């Protein structure tokens, strides 16, 4: 253990020392975008990049007086290629900062490299608790959320609704496990009981057997997490099984974000929790939505906001160190003090570098996730296992 630590420390200090020699405060800032450009998450990657570039454009194309030069790598949402991909940016292109990514497995591999090399990294989506938990580091920040956050907020909401027994159902993989754990923590703390945890292997979508199991268990409510095609199919099957009328369904916002167009009223009235919604109707959000729609002829979503805020974080940190990105401690300190002016509403960063933010309660009305209240105010991820705490 000790030997490993020493070696790690040595590697880190070497890696940290290297850029100091070339420390630059002028000239172009190299930004590496490691996002999915192909595959299921391609549209999410695009929204993040659009959001990021929108903020930079709004700042006149420069952050803290430095022009931005972009380097892009398509991570294909493939964890097995993640280490090679981030090394292309860090070692070959010598980028100053890496922005990425959507897929949690890829983000974990990236965080490991960022931690080892000391490269500044901002995660604009991947919610894996570990990124700001055991993997947390001085140079790793997140502009999105942790899986724990919307799940924990929903646990409180479901308990407040007076439900006593809940069945959870999700895919058996890291994100599914984390969201169920967060929900269970809050729900059981408030006196409820998770009576059964159902799961099926990712990305299996044959739900019928488990729906029968839910019907036979007769819980007060069901908490679920699925995304994309799985979410669409689950909501359809849940409705077709006649359960929507008898057992209310709750889940994190990803259940109904980007899936409503594929549904035909199956999600109507559903309550979800997330740090963003389609109708916040604040001046800040309206201005952002208008600018985004004008620039890209697209409606922004939560991913665009997260990309936008990643650029905002970079700007604030960079301004504090006057463009000298090698000053890691000052960079970190600046970010820890700032209240970010995000379209989602103001947020601050926790000691583990995850946003401390309001989690909204949203309801599906027509094709929109309308905000109906705040499920949890200024909710901070506990950052379990993080050494910065």
């Amino acid at each position, binding site marked *: 253990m000790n030997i490993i630590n020493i070696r790690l420390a040595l590697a880190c200090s070497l890696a940290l020392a290297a850029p100091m020699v070339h420390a630059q405060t002028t000239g172009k800032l190299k930004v590496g975008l490691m996002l999915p450009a*192909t*595959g*299921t998450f*391609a*549209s999410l990657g695009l929204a993040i990049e659009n959001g990021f570039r929108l903020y930079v454009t709004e700042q006149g194309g420069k952050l803290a007086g430095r022009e931005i030069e972009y380097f892009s790598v398509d991570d294909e949402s493939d964890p097995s290629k993640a280490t090679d991909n981030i090394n292309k940016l860090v070692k070959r292109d010598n980028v100053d900062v890496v922005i990425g990514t959507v897929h949690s497995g890829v983000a974990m591999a990236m965080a490991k490299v960022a931690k080892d090399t000391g490269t500044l990294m901002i995660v604009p989506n991947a919610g894996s608790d570990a990124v700001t938990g055991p993997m947390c580091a001085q140079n790793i920040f997140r502009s999105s959320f942790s899986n724990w956050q919307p799940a924990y907020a929903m646990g409180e909401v479901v308990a407040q609704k007076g439900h006593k027994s809940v069945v959870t159902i999700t895919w*058996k993989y890291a994100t599914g496990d984390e969201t169920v754990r967060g929900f269970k923590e809050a729900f059981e703390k408030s006196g409820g009981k998770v009576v059964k945890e*159902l*799961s*099926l*292997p990712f*990305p*299996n*979508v*044959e739900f*019928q*057997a*488990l*729906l*029968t*199991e839910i*019907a*036979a268990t007769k819980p007060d409510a069901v908490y679920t997490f699925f995304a*994309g*095609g799985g*979410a*669409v*199919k689950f909501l*359809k*099957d849940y409705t*077709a*099984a*006649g*359960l929507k009328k008898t057992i209310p369904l709750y889940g994190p916002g990803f259940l109904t974000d*980007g*899936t409503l*167009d*594929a*549904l*035909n009223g199956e999600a109507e009235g559903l309550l979800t929790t997330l740090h963003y919604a389609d109708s916040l109707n604040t001046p800040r959000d309206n201005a952002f939505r208008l600018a985004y729609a004008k620039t890209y002829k697209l409606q922004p979503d939560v991913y665009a906001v997260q990309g936008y805020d990643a650029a905002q974080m970079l700007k604030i940190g960079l301004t504090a160190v006057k463009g000298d990105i090698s000053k890691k401690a000052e960079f970190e300190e600046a970010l820890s003090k700032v209240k970010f002016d995000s379209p989602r509403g103001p947020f601050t960063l926790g000691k583990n570098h995850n946003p401390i933010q309001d989690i909204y309660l949203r309801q599906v009305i027509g094709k929109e996730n309308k905000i109906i209240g705040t499920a949890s105010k200024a909710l901070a991820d506990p950052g379990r296992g993080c050494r910065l705490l």
Partner: protein
Amino acid sequence: MSLTTFLIQCLNSLQYGLLLFLVASGLTLIFGIMGVINLAHGSFYMIGAYMAFALSPIVATTLGGGFFSVLMVGVVLAILLGYALEWIFYSYLYEREHLQQVLMTYGLILVFEELRSLLVGDDVHGVQAPEILSGTLPLGDLMTYPVYRIFISAVCMVLALGMYLVFTRTRLGMMIRAGSANREMVQSLGIDIQFLYRVVFAAGVALAVFAGMVAAPVSSVYPGMGGSVLIICFVVVVIGGIGSIRGALLAALLIGFVDTFGKVLLPQAAGVLVYVLMAVILLWKPDGLFKAG
């Protein structure tokens, strides 16, 4: 587990098994009878599902719409696609090694996925079940069962029976079986085996596309959906015995039961149970349950 729950789970198993058979039936034809390892089978399924989504507005304006007209148009297009693909690509594969077959059909997967992305995009879509089948049946006081799922099961049974009869009772079926046993011999008897195979391949593609279209209202339509059905299709064909329609049906039902009850009774092992089943059956009968020929 109460008796009602048990019976509903049996219904779930049966329904899932029949759906698996529907998807795997095309693969039984192409892999089982023609001997080509067709990794692109899942892509044909995906194409079917996307056709159900993308064709319905077009069919609605030109032919007056309806889910069943979309099915007809889709099957016709699929037969044309299958016929063309066999002519351009697959006809070169019969004499080649399996590795070359795998390489080319894998390449086709990538091409089809990219075309799908260019033509329809990467969003998730839903397909509506036809009006007359969109109701539900109550099952005790527990839950309701969608009529459309029962319709799928009925379609699968009709299809299974139809394929069985064609293979065992018709001249065409005889020629196909003979061709799978010995290509050269059939050819020397004056049968145009090349044309015959082209027809069988087109039928296989049509079956996969048909399965995708019929399943679209319950499965929804999303990128990469072909990949997930491909593996389970191969499991069905291998367990059933290569080239056997009867075996494929039995294997699909067996997998339906093991998967459904596995998820409920042994959730931790649900992901591997089907493969354990395959391993056990292959140890017991290395050629699968009913090897043809």
